[in-house]
């Protein structure tokens, strides 16, 4: 596993911060007073403690055996959605917390939808507050099939569906011993067993995102193994050239990899994409996009449905298609691949000139 980034989402008050508090108290032994409320371990701001709600994304790091965890505790309230967008865009896995009594609510759906839109990472469903329904197995299986249905609709993968309570930590840090729950792993077991997709990308086609140029160009190697004298193609201009220098000489095998590069004839620029010749990669500047507007700082959030054109990355020319789907044209600054989902590169900000207004995912 090595390093796992976990986003925790779900509706208001469904028990996200309490769950994160349980994990932190268990994994960072001795750091918190034993009488400190679990949610307060994660809700550290004065305002958050006063109003008993998460208002800003909380980030914690912990060791799990030899591995590392980053836990992102997102706010549930819609007005603080910026925190959830930030969390889910970075996550390897989303823990979606669903209160056993209340079931799926408005923010639960929205968080699932945003996950489908911005990341498409696997979702671990945690049915919380099982103590409050006296561990009613029927209710659990009802919510389980509901969750499976939504995930299917949205094209998301569910990694596990488990249940528990942060009061006794049953089902969360250790298995429940109750009938019909004894077979279910605890949340912590699920996390320990989880293998994020970190397969080697050496054999994939070459793709380097160029970030800038000093004495040579620098950027991030997304896949493939570049070699000196290799013939390559540079998008969006489309010219061919040859690699004459790669730094460092021996590259790590953990992607993405920071890299330096020089070509024989051309000088690379920010936004360029270096690709292998005649690979099946298609790089273009015209894409479909799907997004949400985010009227910050505190305004309402709505799915993007306007018909007017909205500049993306300061680049205009966006013609909307059907609901939440647009056709956009990017100018030479950015270029996005059509046939592969990339770590962070298919995502963009929606910008109104000076303020971030939303988030977009560029679709193949």
């Amino acid at each position, binding site marked *: 596993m090595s390093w796992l980034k976990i986003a925790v989402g779900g509706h208001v008050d469904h028990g996200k911060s309490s769950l994160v508090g349980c994990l932190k108290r268990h994994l960072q032994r001795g*750091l918190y007073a034993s009488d400190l409320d679990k949610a307060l371990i994660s809700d550290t701001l004065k305002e958050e403690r006063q109003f008993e709600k998460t208002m800003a*994304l909380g980030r914690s790091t912990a060791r799990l055996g030899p591995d590392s965890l980053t836990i992102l505790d997102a706010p549930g309230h819609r007005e603080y959605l910026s925190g959830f967008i930030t969390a889910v865009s970075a996550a390897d896995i989303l823990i979606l917390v669903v209160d056993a009594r209340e079931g799926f609510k408005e923010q639960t759906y929205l968080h699932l939808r945003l996950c489908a839109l911005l990341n498409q990472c696997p979702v671990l469903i945690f049915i919380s507050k099982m103590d409050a329904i006296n561990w009613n197995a029927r209710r659990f299986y009802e919510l389980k099939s509901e969750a499976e249905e939504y995930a299917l609709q949205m094209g998301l993968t569910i990694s596990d569906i488990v249940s528990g309570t942060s009061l006794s930590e049953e089902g969360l840090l250790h298995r429940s011993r109750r009938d019909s729950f004894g077979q279910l792993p605890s949340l912590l077991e699920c996390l320990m067993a989880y293998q994020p997709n970190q397969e080697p990308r050496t054999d994939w086609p070459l793709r380097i995102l160029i970030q800038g140029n*000093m004495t*040579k160009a620098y950027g991030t190697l997304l896949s493939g193994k570049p070699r000196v004298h290799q013939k390559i193609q540079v998008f969006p201009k489309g010219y061919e050239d040859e690699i004459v220098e790669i730094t460092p000489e021996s590259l790590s095998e953990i992607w993405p990899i920071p890299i330096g590069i020089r070509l024989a004839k051309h000088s690379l620029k920010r936004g360029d994409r270096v690709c292998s010749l005649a690979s099946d990669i298609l790089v273009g500047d015209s894409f479909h996009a799907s997004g949400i507007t985010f009227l910050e700082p505190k305004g309402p959030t709505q799915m993007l449905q306007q018909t007017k054109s909205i500049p993306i990355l300061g680049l205009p020319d966006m013609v909307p298609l059907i609901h939440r789907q647009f056709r956009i044209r990017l100018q030479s600054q950015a270029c996005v691949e059509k046939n592969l989902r990339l770590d*962070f590169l298919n995502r963009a900000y929606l910008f109104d000139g000076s303020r*971030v207004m*939303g988030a977009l995912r560029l679709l193949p």
Partner: protein
Amino acid sequence: MLRNVQLSFATMSILTRLEAQAIHWIREVYSQYPKTVMLWSAGKDSTALLWMVKKAFFGEIPFPIVHIDTSVKPPELLLFRDQLAKEWGFKLIVLRNEAAISQKQTFFDRGLTRMQCCKNLKSQPLIDLVKSDIFPSGPVQVVIVGLRSDEEGSRSKERFVSLRDKNSQWDPVLQPPEMDGVCPPAIPDGYHFRLHPLLEWTETLIWEYTRQEGLPVNPLYFSKDGMRYRSLGCLPCSAPFPSRATNVDEILLEMRHLAETSERKGRGQDSEDGGLETLRRGGYM
């Protein structure tokens, strides 16, 4: 040197990924916003960060490095600072709030609260720097800071890219959304960013990285007469603790037990009313 603590494969791969993440952010932000400065306290975190900057730009440090001098930093720290600046050959800007120091507007001269003192001697020079004309072409766009989310509560609420107003004030609740690894396309008028590339590192990982890369270490971190510093601050407000660790390997062995208490325990200002959250909302790093 002792090699008691073997770096596991898991740790090496975490260090590689965290370093790649930091370098990606540094390059991304600097390429888009060249009016960047970086704060360097000469402590372990910002020294590791400075090393990553060198790696990001092929051995060069392309932006000014700023050290805030409070006049009560340990002399060993200043010596280490000047030696490394010479050795690595970068432009070092030392900032001091001379007015506050000469008028004794401090904790150690006048009995101001520790927080008021931090504000005068550390926040204020930074606030002034951002407003200054250090770049002829316009105001500072980005300040890179080596803070970590595990240091204390309010830092756990930080973003990689943290929006600040012209007075460097921080509102943790009103931060725009952040797309992982994507640099914001513009800075709102009158605002600037802080970049926190080390946000997801831990104290132990910084030491493991320091050892892996063979980085220079300020001798104050090593035991002298049975005591050493875990976090370096101003003399009146930092206390060393009993330790026998005399090199990085021994610190790493010691960390296995230490991780359970707070690293900043020796720092006075953290325990005062409102503590760091108030200080940090006001522009502290």
